[in-house]
């Protein structure tokens, strides 16, 4: 199982990571961060293969992936 860490306070909610994840590991939150946007957060980490496609597409480079 891989580990995805997202700095949620810096997320701008563009959802490009959600779009790029082949296993639907990342979902948008229901709550808001300090910017007032729904942020991306890793859910269902047991499905994560650590491919890092989400991190590759993140314009803010706030996703870190460990495997």
């Amino acid at each position, binding site marked *: 199982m*891989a*580990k995805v860490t997202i700095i949620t306070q*810096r997320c*701008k*909610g*563009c*959802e*490009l990571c959600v*779009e*790029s994840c082949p296993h639907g590991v990342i979902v948008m939150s229901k709550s808001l961060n300090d910017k007032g*946007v729904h942020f991306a957060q890793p859910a269902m980490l047991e499905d994560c293969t*650590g491919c*890092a*496609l989400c*991190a*590759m*597409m*993140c*314009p*803010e*480079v706030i*996703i*870190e*992936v*460990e*495997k």
Partner: protein
Amino acid sequence: MTKVFTRPYSLKDVETHYCGGCGHGIVHRLIADAVDELGIRERVVGIAPVGCAVLAYDYFNFDVCEAAHGRAPAVATGMKRARPDLIIFAYQGDGDLAAIGMAEIIHAANRGENISVFFVNNAVYGMTGGQMAPTTMIGQKTETTPRGRLMEQEGSPIRVSELLAQFDGVKFVERCTITKPKNVNRTKAAITHALRMQIEGKGFGFVEILSPCPTYWGLQPRVAMKMIEERMIEVFPLGQLKDIEEKK
């Protein structure tokens, strides 16, 4: 556990001012990654444009200089001739490079300066509020073409890569995009190749990157990425237009 993806050292750990879903952040990361991989952080100098990426010097963890509007290739020429040991790249948008800076880029390319130019094409003026750029597509709505760009009135979009590829001084031209991980990797390879050619003294390298502007296209970021794939690639075909080191 080992880290499979982490922020490159050449990219400062700060928040950018770009809108959500803007392509500049991804391109910044790719350049920083390439600089780290080539091990040239100590001797690379970037030149920021006037446009949305004007504050790029706050984000790169190496020396970055700011040039007057569109004059990045001229500044790069001066720097490279004065200090040939440095690796110089110009980072420009389409309003900067294809409009006000068209003369500078054409002559720098024609002279075959040993520099690299990264051209981020989002078909609109971002910083000034979404006006038509020279690269705006026919029919595309912007603030100054509210009914869509008309061929009869505003002309057709300028294909800068094709324009520059004809010069003998230009050694490498490639057009890429960042719509999905595959294309992001392709773009990174092109950026690395352009920088490596400069290190080896082979001459002028130009990489055009089709990038989304969700704010002024009026689209959600994921829809903006689809718009590049469905509409923009037709007008600006992807691929390598020139490379003196043909891959076998």
